[in-house]
């Protein structure tokens, strides 16, 4: 056993991950149960089931042999073949450790990743995972096996976060390691140098990847509702600042919005799907964003 897996097997970590899995399943299934007809049945060799023909079904799928035996129209359904290779890029750096609510950004980000992984694996898509801070920490290659979820979750657990410096380096690494076209989902607070981020995103797009960005931010970071004398200590930067937060709030929000606008604009320029999610928001929102994005991708494909 490697030292990594020991740390991974740490009871607290196990508990948290188990929890995470349950939470992901619950969220995804709860979400799917609200959708009556799954559109995700693709062409495959492996037969899955027969279904009675209904109006609107493609005539090509009708099993004429069954019609000959039973004088009824049945369509054949196959397990969809993996046509999506999704790489989850999850930011586990120090800045992600901030959280004002029950979930820190890290927890929220990991939950998004785990939920997506679960969802994708259920759909027989292959899911890979890369967790990173200042460098790539853990890399899990894409697999379609159901139990692959464990590997993905294990990859998300990083005990000693580092600060992230250059997103470009990370994204370039990913682009190089995953030359096949696929989907790249970046879950991060994007608190890094913007130029590197945009260059990295552009690189991924150039390589033919479909890129989706979940920008995870805490309510406190977005609203800055602090009062009273406070000492802010940097999670990544070594700087600290004692101040009255009310006095700085307007300036802070101004800088924040300028940053959010820049990020949103940069993503749009690079045709990257961008979603800003608050850690206080229900996870369905994040998943709805993902799914709508996927729908759009279907159409584009």
């Amino acid at each position, binding site marked *: 056993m490697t030292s990594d897996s020991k740390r991974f097997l740490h009871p607290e970590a196990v508990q948290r991950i188990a929890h995470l899995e349950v939470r992901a399943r619950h969220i995804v299934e709860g979400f799917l149960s609200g959708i009556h007809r799954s559109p995700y049945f693709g062409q495959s060799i492996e037969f899955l089931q027969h279904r009675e023909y209904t109006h609107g079904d493609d005539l090509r799928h009708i099993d004429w042999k069954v019609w000959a035996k039973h004088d009824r129209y049945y369509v054949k359904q196959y397990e969809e073949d993996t046509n999506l290779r999704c790489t989850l890029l999850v930011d586990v750096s120090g800045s992600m450790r*901030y959280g004002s609510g029950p979930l820190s950004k890290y927890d929220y980000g990991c939950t998004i990743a785990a939920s997506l992984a679960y969802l994708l694996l259920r759909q027989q898509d292959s899911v890979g995972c890369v967790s990173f801070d200042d460098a790539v920490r853990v890399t899990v290659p894409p697999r379609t096996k159901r139990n692959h979820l464990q590997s993905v979750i294990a990859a998300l657990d990083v005990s000693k976060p580092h600060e992230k410096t250059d997103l470009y380096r990370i994204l370039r690494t990913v682009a190089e390691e995953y030359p096949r076209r696929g989907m790249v989902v970046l879950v991060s607070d994007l608190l890094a140098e913007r130029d590197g981020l945009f260059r990295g995103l552009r690189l991924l797009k150039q390589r033919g990847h479909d890129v989706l960005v979940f920008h995870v931010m805490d309510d406190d970071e977005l609203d800055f509702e602090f009062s009273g004398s406070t000492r802010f200590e940097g*999670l990544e930067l070594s700087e600290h600042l004692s101040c009255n937060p009310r006095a700085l709030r307007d300036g802070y929000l101004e800088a924040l919005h300028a940053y959010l606008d820049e990020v949103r604009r940069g993503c749009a320029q690079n045709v990257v799907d961008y979603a800003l999610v608050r850690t206080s928001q229900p996870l369905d929102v994040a998943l709805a964003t993902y799914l709508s994005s996927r729908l759009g991708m279907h159409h584009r494909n």
Partner: protein
Amino acid sequence: MSSFVNPTLLWGLLILAAPILIHLINLMRHRRIQWAAMEFLLASKKKNNTWIKLKELLLLLLRLAAVAAVVLIVAQPLLQNQLGRLFGDTKTNHVVLLDDSFSMSDRAGTSSVFDEAKSLIGRLGAQAARQTTPQTFTLLRYSRAGAGTTGTQYDMLKDRVDANFDQKLDDTLRRLAPSQTAVGLSPALDAMAQFLSEATGEETIVYVVSDFRARDWEEPGNVAEGLAQISERAAQLHLVNCADAARPNLAVTALAPRGGTRAAGVPVSIEVTVRNFGGTPVENVAVLLSEDGRERPAVSIDLIGAGKSETRRFEVFFATAGTHQVTARLQGDAVAADNTRYCLVELPVAVSVLVIDGDPDARNARFLATAFRPGGNARTGLEPQIERPDYLNKHALDKYRTIYLTNVERLDNPAITALENYVKAGGGVVFFIGERTAARFYNEKLYRDGLGLFPVPLLRETQLLVDRLEKGADIEAAPEGLFSIFAGERNSFLAGVTVEKYFSVPKSWSPPADSGTQVLARLRNGDPLAVERKFDKGHVVAILTTAAPLWNNWGRNPSFVVALLELQSHLVEAGSRDESRLVGTPLRMALDAARYQPRVRWLTPGLGEAGSTTVDAPIGPNGLDLSLAETDAAGVYELQLSTTDNQVESQRFAFNVAPDEGDLAIVDRDELAGRLKNVRYDYRQAADFHATSHDLAGSNISDWILYLLVGILVGEQLLAYSASYHPKAKGAPA
């Protein structure tokens, strides 16, 4: 340098450290937050740092200022005048001008207005004693300002306010009582002007403690001027009214003998006037009377209207000659002093009347003498003395109350001068014309174109033509004047008088305006028969016909006696020297040094022998110079004299209170403001007057600091709001 009412509270300035300490403590116990988005925070800080620092510094200063202001308000700083600031301690002099006129004795229940004034002064003294700066206290009563020969007598003059001051003030106040004078504020203001001109480098606060009766402020004149001067020179001028309400008051405003001949054994008419100063009519007022201390039946007045006076006449009878005292007294009311009035009636054994006749047989004079002293039981009190004209320049005339000249042909110059002097001094002279009368002498010597004492120029002896058709009376009395008792149709006596001859006056003559000349009676043809003229203090009457029934039959008519006695009483009254002396006015008189010894004795009323003072009168240019300055009590003062031949004589003088002082109406605040336009003053009721330290020394700037504090707090809130130290309202857009 300013001082403080509560300097020890300045230690409270240490609280100034509190905001700084709070700031330091907040620095120590701030929250720590592990923060991811430092980038934006640092950007914000970089952008706003200067502004925030500035605002916070300002905020700190404002909060310090607010704390300091609160401490200062409690400590009550006193800003003293420029001089005071240069030399440190300013002396504050409290000057109280206390009204002690008798209207201050206005009593409601057990306490009088004066008591209220005393208690107010006590409070002022106590307040002054609490001050930290040097204080002095001066107390002056109105009646003591410039009073008598001794000048202004202060009850307290710049007494230092020290530990014993309270006791001293108490003792002084206990001695004070309202006087019976009606002296106003004016003399006190004069004294004050001098006082203030001497007080340099001091701050003077003047309190006028009075009852502010409306009557005193109707025509303030020099009082307003005096107050204006004081308000300029003194730091503060307070007018304090101790009278809370105008209570009803009755006063005896006049008591004096009227008309008739005053002599022993002759009834004397006396008039008493009672005035109701209240706002409601008063019924059944009994005026208690006494003659020489013996009670006599009271005079009752049924109704006296509000603000009205009622006069009643009564007769007193004194059998003996001398000075007799009549006293009128009302039952008690708000003010006691004006309920009693004293009157002295001087009755000689008889009144001497000099009758001069130019004719040696004195026919005219005898007719007059008979009329004056008819004999029998009828007593007129007159004592006629018949003399020749040369008597006038040989004898003193001042012992005669009236002089009658009948049928006088001429008088020599000394006699004319003596006669004129006699009239000027207040005597009465009556001329009767006779057959000896020479118009030229009268016109040239006695009339002198109106400068002499004779009232009309004479023309000639004239016959009154008998009118057989007209049955009217020969004499027509003027409707007003001396003979007015004869005016009217009902009188049949005067209608029976026939005048045959008289002295006519020039047709062009008519009584000159404003000369005091009036025609008392005319003949039926319109010519004047009796003319009266006021000559200086005395009166002269010319009757242009004979006294004896020579040119007329008047002497045989009963109306002659009546007319003559009326004339006599009119002349006596016109020239009477009934002096109405006011309480508080000094009594001065000169006596013949050859007749009296200089040692005299004064008896003050109400005190008997204990109130007697014996003095040696100095000899002045007019003889013994007698004066009595202390006439502050109403009543009868007596002067006991010894003649050089050791005979004891006495003279009595009645002093009464000023009748108007009993009017207790209080001046309206607005009215007062209207009267005192140029005066900077503060008018308050005694009950509302609480001299604060603000009034007592320097100008207390606490109020200003309070306003400043409000300003600071508003500014602090605004600044704090702008520095985003206030949470935004819920639901408001971020």
